[in-house]
């Protein structure tokens, strides 16, 4: 049994740390140093696997992609996966088509949705619901989007780059809404008031003043969404089909994309196919990095905080 102290004694004990002016004990200092070292170690734990992944992609990918440059980026995909050699041309075109289409669908809708949330709805019940559901929607697994588009589109109209674009647009929409709303929030209220004082209507204020002021941040947020979407595989699996030759028709016919080629070739036992997967991975990673870099440049111009 622990002896129970009187209230006065308890108060005295509680007071001691404040009266204790001794230098920090060794044990406390050691604990603190250990914690700091642990935090630093976790940064290493995060960085090392990332470096390993990037190294594998660069080392194995560059070897494939740069051999007989630029054949890898232009030639069609060998139909027989046993064959080694280039290329990935149709998949690069497919990725551009699918991602570009998704951007054209989701970015205007996303920006308009964000305009509603920030400029019209703000704290209304409906706006709060939409805001909340958009956040929930960012967490819906991409494969669910893929199956959904298969059931409402592909099942009737067949494989096409457009189907893939629809699925990716579903993924991008909530992301664009979220990032754009953040940017609209940063536009100073005085700008809006100045425009109203000149007699502008609300739509005029939003289009010519608010959206223009938020443009760099909006572009940057959309580009980050594009970079994410370009690397998605699962939404495309059911909608795009599997072509090994060029198909520049956005609306019709089976197409392909870099992530799908990586997925397909990764499980192959043939070294030639695995090589093509690494080459496609390097191409895809470079593409995603370039888009992300462009986004960063826009953010830097706008000089806002908050990168996610």
């Amino acid at each position, binding site marked *: 049994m622990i002896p129970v102290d009187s209230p006065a004694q308890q108060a005295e004990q509680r007071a001691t740390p404040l009266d204790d002016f001794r230098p920090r004990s060794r044990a406390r200092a050691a604990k603190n140093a250990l914690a700091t070292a642990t935090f630093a170690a976790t940064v290493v734990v995060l960085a090392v696997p990332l470096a390993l992944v990037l190294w594998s992609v660069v080392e194995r990918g560059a070897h494939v992609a740069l051999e007989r440059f630029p054949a890898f980026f232009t030639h069609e995909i060998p139909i027989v996966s046993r064959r080694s050699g280039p290329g990935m041309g149709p998949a690069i075109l497919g990725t551009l088509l699918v991602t570009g289409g998704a951007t054209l669908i989701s970015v205007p809708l996303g920006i308009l949705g964000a305009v509603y*949330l920030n400029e019209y709805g703000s704290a209304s019940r409906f706006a709060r619901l939409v805001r909340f559901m958009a956040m929930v929607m960012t967490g819906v697994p991409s494969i669910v989007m893929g199956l959904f588009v298969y059931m409402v589109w592909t099942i009737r109209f067949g494989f096409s780059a457009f189907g893939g674009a629809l699925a990716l647009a579903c993924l991008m929409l909530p992301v664009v809404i979220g990032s754009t709303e953040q940017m609209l929030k940063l536009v100073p209220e005085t700008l809006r008031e100045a425009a109203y004082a000149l007699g502008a*209507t609300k739509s005029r204020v939003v289009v010519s003043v608010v959206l223009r002021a938020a443009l760099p941040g909006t572009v940057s947020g959309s580009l980050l969404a594009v970079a994410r979407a370009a690397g998605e595989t699962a939404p495309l699996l059911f909608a795009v089909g599997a072509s090994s030759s060029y198909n520049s028709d956005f609306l019709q016919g089976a197409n392909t994309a870099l992530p799908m080629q990586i997925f397909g070739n990764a499980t192959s036992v043939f070294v030639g196919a695995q090589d093509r997967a690494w080459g496609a991975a390097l191409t895809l990673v470079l593409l995603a990095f370039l888009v992300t870099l462009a986004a960063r440049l826009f953010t830097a111009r706008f000089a806002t905080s908050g990168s996610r």
Partner: protein
Amino acid sequence: MTILDERPRRANEAFRWLSVGSATIVLLLLGLIAVVMTAGAVPVFRHMGLQFFVSRRWSVAGDVYGALPFMWGTLYTSIIALAISVPVSLGVALFITQVAAPWMKRPLVYLVDLLAVVPSVVFGLWGILMVAPYLGRSFLTTGLILAMMITPIITSLSREVIETTPSSEMEAAYALGATRWEMICGSIWPHSKGGLVGAVMLGLGRAMGETIAAALTIGSAIGQITLDPLKPGNSMPAVIANQWGEAYDLQKSALVALAVVLFGITVLVNLIATAIVQRSITRTRGK
């Protein structure tokens, strides 16, 4: 321009409705996804009933579809991923917010973001060709790859939550002579534990839904329910991706049903997590 001109007013109204319509699309899409997917799953629920959720057998030839092993695989790989990712994410978030010198913060944030930029299929490729030769295609390999993929989101959300700790509380701890570690335990932790739980749950939602990396590295075993992390298994999204191509009607319905279960679970997890994170962040910022 005269005041009687009606055009600006009409354009004004049209723009307003355009933006309302765009916002509504989010709700319509979510509703439509739920309805369409559930309708697609009806045949297998008719065929299997509640057995779908508890049966361990998945046999195309026998027309038996039990989802239990896939649910187990999703749960188990996600738990492994969280077990690895949560300590790392919290450590990195605390390092960035509390330890790092100001000039180090930005590069470190970029490093975390870099991890988020790498496409999941590239992680999968690395997993199957570089990790699987050592660990096999297994729950553990998938858990490892998933951990790498969810670390950025848990880290950046934790950072956001930790940064909402009022500096007065942190300075108060220092003024009492606390070391940094004691300040973290005494000021940051009590303040942000709720938000951190939300951040971890959002990471969990991502891990459960991740498809391609799991499809490549988990090993596609059928009916495997085991605690041995080195055994091959299967998860809900992985089996959808791997079997859809050559699936028959009822099998397709069963795969859609798996997607419905996945959708339901992830939406639920995200609903709770989003609510927790939002409340924890606005509680401090709102005042």
